[in-house]
Structures are given as C-alpha cells and as structure tokens.
C-alpha cells in the first residue's frame, strides 16, 4: 500500500464487512436480551439493507473513467476497527455501550469516506452519508436503552 490511498474496492469491502459484523453482533444481542429483541432485529435488517445499498451504488456507478483507484486518500481502515467480541454474559449497559462504540466508529468511517469521495459521482458520497445517518440514528436509539446511572 502507498500508506494513504485506498481503492474504492477496498472501501466497499470494508463497508460490507462492517455491516455484516454489526448484523451478527445485533443478532447476538437479540438472543441475549429478548425484552429488546424486536429493536435489535430491526437493527439486523437495517445493517443488511445498508450493506446492499452501498454495494449497489458502487456497482452502478463504478466506471473505468472514475478515479476509483486514487480517491480515498488519507483514510486508514485501522482507525475504524474495534473489538467485536461481547464479553460472556454482558449486562445490558455493557452491551449497549459496546454497540454505541461500534456505531460511533461506523459513523466516523462513513463520514470520512463520504468526504474523500466528493470528487466522484454524487451518488457515491450520498450513499456513504446516508449510511452514516443510519448509524447515527441507531446510536441515538441505543442511548434510550441505557438504564439510568446508579
């Protein structure tokens, strides 16, 4: 790697991985916290939808004429990688705080790649911004699940 410029393919693959792993994570929460299963299940579906939207946007706009190999400068994917493993028998607070951290990371990822892709067709940064807003709303919804601090 040249250290600072990623290909569009690498960015989209990271997005796919992120959405897949988040969906898996929320499936686990759905099992562990049946009282909130409906909400966590909706998160699973939302992750799957976001993943599809990003890939579809990429596949429908990628072209030999776009600078797909040179547009994502200054992005380091390591900055968005977090610990995904839930501790055994987590409390709701532990689980939600971890989910919030993951969503915060996702929001930052989509915000950064949207900024980096402004020179590409408008549909590409728009798709990233939309994904970022979805994660932002989810982070806020998670906040409501947190029990009051003791």
């Amino acid at each position: 790697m040249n250290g600072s410029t990623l290909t569009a393919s690498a960015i989209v693959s990271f997005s796919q991985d992120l959405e897949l792993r988040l969906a898996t994570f929320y499936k686990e929460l759905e099992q562990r916290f049946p009282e909130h299963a409906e909400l966590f299940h909706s998160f699973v579906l939302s992750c799957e939808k976001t993943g599809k939207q990003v890939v579809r946007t990429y596949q429908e706009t990628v072209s030999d004429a776009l600078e797909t190999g040179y547009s994502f400068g200054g992005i380091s994917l390591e900055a968005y990688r977090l610990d995904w493993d839930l501790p055994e028998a987590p409390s709701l607070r532990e689980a939600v705080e971890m989910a919030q951290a993951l969503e915060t990371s996702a929001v930052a990822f989509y915000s950064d790649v949207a900024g980096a892709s402004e020179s590409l067709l408008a549909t590409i940064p728009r798709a990233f911004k939309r994904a970022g807003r979805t994660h932002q709303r989810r982070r806020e919804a998670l906040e409501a699940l947190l029990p009051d601090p003791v």
Partner: protein
Amino acid sequence: MAILKEPIRGVLDLQNYIDGEWVDSTGELQDIVNPATMTTIGHVPMSTADEMAAAVAAAQAAFPEWRRTPPLARARCLFRLKELLEDSFEELSRIQTMEHGKTIDESRGETRRGIEMVEVATGIPNLMMGANLEDVAAGIDETLIRQPLGVFGIIAPFNFPFMVPLWFAPFAVATGNCVVVKPSPRAPLSQSRIAELAEEAGIPEGVWSVVHGDQEAASAMMAHPDVKGVCFVGSTPVGREIYRRCGATGKRVIAQCGAKNFAVVMPDADIDMTVASLMTSFFGNTGQRCLANANLVVVGEGLSASEHDAFYRRVVDAFVSMASRITVGYGLDEAVQMGPIKDPSSKERVLGYIQKGIEEGATLRLDGRTFDLVGNELPRDCFIGPTVFEDVTPEMTLAQDEIFGPVAAMIRARSFDEALSMIDANPYGNAASIFTSSGRWAREFRYRVACGNIGVNVGIAAPMAFFPFSGMKDSFFGVLHGQGQEAVRFFTESKVVIERWF
C-alpha cells in the same frame, strides 16, 4: 489485503458457440495465461475458416425469423440479458482481471460500461423508429424505414475483453441483425461467458455466436459474402487493412484504432484535481487503452519563462510524486492500483520504448523497470511500474508512438497554440483532454482539436453508451461510430417509401 476469490479454478477448454450449440474446434489450442500469476487458466482454439463459415451460415439462417421478431420482443431478450449480467456482475469482473490483468475496480468499471450498452439497446423500439411525412406532393406520402441488414462480425481486442464487443452486439441484435463475435485469443473468456448468458436470456440460436481464433477466423469473416459489416477495435495498421478489404467487398466498417492522446494542462488548472485525474488516465488499465493519455503538455501561456519553469515543476513533481506511490500487483488484491501488462512480449516492447526514450535524450524521472510488487511471490514477467519521462519533445519516439503501457511523457509548450500544433501534428485523433478553469480555453480546445473524444478537466474522455464513441484521423476508419444512435444507423439500412393511392 486479501486476494479476492478467483472465479476460475483449473483450466478451461473453450468451445465455439455456433447456432446455439457449444462445439469443439478442430483448430490448434493456445494457452490463456493470467498475466499476474503466469498460470494457464484456459485453452482457446484457433478456429478454422470453415468454422467461421458455419457460424455465418447459422447467423444468416437465423436472420429472417429474428428480423420478423417484434422490436419489443427483441428488447425483452436484452432486458433478460441485462439482468443476467447484473446477477453475474462480480464473477464477470473477476474473470476480466484474471484474463487481462486489470485491477478489480477497473474490471467492475468495464462490466458496468458493458451492461450500459445492453441497457441503452433495450430502448430499440424508440431508437429504431423511422419517420414519415404526408403530402410531400399531391396525395403522396413519404416514409423512412430502418431495416436490419443481416450478419455482422465483431473482432475484439484484448484490452477490454468484456466491454468492447458490447459496444456493437446489443445494438446489432436489437435492430434485428445477427452477430458473430471473434474475441481476442489473448483474453477470450468473458465473451464465452456472455454467450452463455445470451443463451440463458433466450436469444435464439444463430443470433449471437462466438467463434474463437486469430487471423484465419478473422479473414474468413471479412471475406464471407453474407457478412454485411465488420466492427473492429485494435491497432491502426490492422484497422486500415480491414477497412480496405471490407471496402473492396462493399461491407460496412467501424474500425476504431490506435491512439496517442495528449493532456494539456493550462496555468489556471487545479493541480491537485488534475493530477488525481491524470493518474487514472495515464496508468489506468496499465496504459493499455486507446483513451489513455500518454503525453502531458504543460503550457506556459501568459507566463514568463521563469514562471513557466515553476509551473512545469509543480505539475511534474506532483505527477511523479503520485505516480511513484501507485501500488502494483495482482488486480484481485484490493490494495492494488495497477495490474500487469498483458504478456511478457508486451512488457518487452514497453521496455524497448523506455530504452529508446533514454537514447533519444529524454530524462527518465520515474523508472518503471524497478518497482515494489505487492505480493512478492508473484512472478515479475508481466509487471512494470509507472514510468515518467521529462524533457520530451514532440518529435521523439516516446511522444509519437502508441506505447500501450504505463509510460508518461512530459512536454513543455510555451503557448496554447503550440500545444495544439503538437496534437495536430500527431497522426492519431482518438482523444485529447484539457485541464483549465477557463471556459475560453476549454471552448477553443474543443473547437479546434481534431480528436473524436474531448475531455475538459476529464482525463478519460469515454463516451457513454448513448453517445457515439468517436475517433478521427488514424484512430478511426469508417463513417458511423459504435454506440447510441450512430450504432443504430450503422446496423440498419434506410429505406424510403413514396406512396400514392389511386
């Protein structure tokens, strides 16, 4: 980063697709080699003249019924083909990377461009519509009808193995013609896969055939009296010969040929945006594309000599800096920005041009003969790094010949007019780009430059499917171009009916 999964496992033995059947060829087999790994991924037959004749005969036999098929029904076949291509998007893209070497982003871009041709051709009920006018004389009406001609041949190059036949075939088939595609023997896999999908889409037997091979098959296609026209993309000498031979037998021809494209950078250009765009333009597809820019002309219009020097230095330094950081490796590695050249002999040819540039006095600023390869275990037979020459003058071989590799020539021009005179003096006329923030320079450029595809702050002036892929001078032989309405006109004859009823 991990290597994406290869869709081809083992070694494929390609067959011809003639009259809706997959048939073995009696011709000799040639290896299909993945240039990144140097592994043989298939064998392609060098089909005989008789086999080409069989495909043309089947196409000619299928033509009357296909012609009578309503345009909307023909369009529905193409809608189904489009859906199947979408479903196979990733597989098709990875096949291209394996057979050609381009990066996965580039392959996906090529897949998208190809699918767009099919999409546009589905509009054939409107695109093919004629015209009429009542009362051109007393009680007389006149009608223009567009009718298909019969069988068309398509001779494809290796550098866009998936997309280029789709510049023509969907329009030919949509207008009621039948096609015989002869893919490049150097990268034939995509076209076999497309034929499988065309079969699945319900395109009737004989309407869309694929005959693999080289000169013998191509010559048989051109000589066949039932072939009404030939579409070719490749080198200028071959295109010129095809134009001559087909002209002698009255065939229609689209021959899109070689190029040596110029990018002109004016002093008011946004350098950061320009250089990013130029990377794709000069080094995309490893320089193996007819729309690639190869000569970068830094113009000093309105600047003093010292200011021109400083501007030239800024542009070239930024260019070299970015080019030197391009990652080279196997295109299925998502970290890679530039793949290999197609084969070792092509690499040798590019290396020869680098040596020639040195001998002619150009300054080798970035030497692609030494470079880091992502994936050290890969054989280096076909890899070469981005190469940049400075102090190039327009008469040098570097600036004249189509190198078809990742070699950039930096040239100075004192004025806009001098830059245009360089473009004018070059025998090719495929594409040219200008980078400027001045509408005046942009307008002058597009008005005066004799190239078929003009980019304004765009490095790759690639026309969309609904515009013609143009070309001038030694870059194009023919009258009508591929894609869009011009393709519809190429694949149809205009018939005029003048009616009076007593």
